[in-house]
């Protein structure tokens, strides 16, 4: 069965390592913070200017001055730090953040990503995404395999305006975990009960399939 959003977040949480500083984008990536494996110490950075994000506040304890990059009210853990936006992006450009997780509208087989604009229809702006993908060493995209029209979002070439070039390392969807290498999507794992054939059918870009593809363990 295909994963839900929480399943995708749980699978991505398995990629976390002890001591990492991690930036989570808006949407499914934000959920990753809820599933940090026990015993790991991971600090979450939000590009508007906070390190050491904690869980959402209890009702009545929201602070308008304390939000994440998705403008959601948050709390901080002991040892947190606040800083200005220039310092925040110094952390990002300077490669002090070990992992970036973000959503996407399209990803291509060479690791290009598009997630900020549909010409003539929708313009949200890139926010911090262009800075993040241009500098991060390790970028995981969390997204659905197909768009609402049922078209594959894993493409040979992105059709939408790009956010970054040849930068995505891994994609986790409701169907599969795929690694991008040498201009192709390499199928690493499939969601429990999802067939390789279904993933093939829903992937437009070049797909490399090893002799055996294990199911994810969540």
């Amino acid at each position, binding site marked *: 069965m295909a994963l839900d959003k929480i399943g995708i977040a749980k699978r991505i949480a398995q990629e976390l390592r002890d001591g990492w500083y991690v930036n989570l984008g808006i949407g499914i990536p934000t959920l990753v913070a809820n599933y940090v494996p026990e015993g790991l110490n991971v600090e979450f950075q939000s590009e508007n200017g906070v390190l050491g994000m904690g869980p959402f506040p209890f009702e009545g304890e929201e602070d308008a001055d304390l939000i994440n990059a998705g403008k959601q009210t948050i709390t901080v853990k002991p040892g947190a730090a606040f800083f200005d936006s220039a310092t925040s992006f110094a952390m990002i450009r300077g490669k002090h953040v070990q992992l970036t997780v973000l959503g996407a509208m399209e990803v291509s087989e060479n690791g290009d990503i598009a997630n900020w604009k549909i010409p*003539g229809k929708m313009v949200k702006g890139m926010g911090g995404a262009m800075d993040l993908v241009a500098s991060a060493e390790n970028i995981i995209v969390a997204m659905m395999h197909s768009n609402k029209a049922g078209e594959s979002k894993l493409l040979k070439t992105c059709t939408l305006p790009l956010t970054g070039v040849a930068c995505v390392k891994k994609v986790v969807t409701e169907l599969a975990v795929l690694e991008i290498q040498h201009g192709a999507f390499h199928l690493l794992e499939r969601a429990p009960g999802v067939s390789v054939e279904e993933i093939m059918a829903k992937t437009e870009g070049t797909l490399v399939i090893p002799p055996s593809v294990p199911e994810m363990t969540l």
Partner: protein
Amino acid sequence: MNKVQPSIENALAGIKDGMTLMIGGFGLCGIPENAIKELVKMGVRELTCISNNAGVDNYGLGLLLQQQQIKKMISSYVGENDAFERQMLSGELEVDLIPQGSLAERCRAGGAGIPAFFTPAGFGTEVAEGKEVRIFNGKPHILEEALTADFAIVKAWKGDTEGNLVYKATAMNFNPMMAMAGKITIAEVEELVPAGTLDPNFIHTPGIFVQRIFQGAVFEKRIEQRTVRTR
């Protein structure tokens, strides 16, 4: 020179049609909300506003958009403002969208006397069109130029009569860089205290960057995405 302004009218005096303004804040967090309302009252038009977002439809810079006082926005993200998206797609509003980190650094550079810098952000995208590209350490970077403004309007938690500012939590965001980059910087503070009250060890923006300071009358501090967990 007395930086303390007797009224919000005095604080914003001199802002004219066609000027370029930097407005601090990220979303509705850390915006100079009293000053924005005063700009609506003043009715200044044809403004170029440099601000990460454009508020929401009925608050923050959204209020200026409603009155069509803004000619051009320089921002990184406009997703939460339908009026903005509509005016931009229809071409009424000129919009320069730039990566958030580049926006922050362009303001910082403007205040720091650095005319331009190279960054990898935006290479290979629309943002890089017409910009010089150079390779450093084997990687392409694009040239981004500094930003300055006729007036920068920032919001701080506390400020003193010397113009020293302290921000609270993530309400800091773009305010410190914009304070540096304004030809005249106006600080709207929640609490204005006498010089000597704030610990010099914990000043975020030194008073040299601030020309005018006033205490805002009302802080609504609206929350865009109230998100809570259950007890």
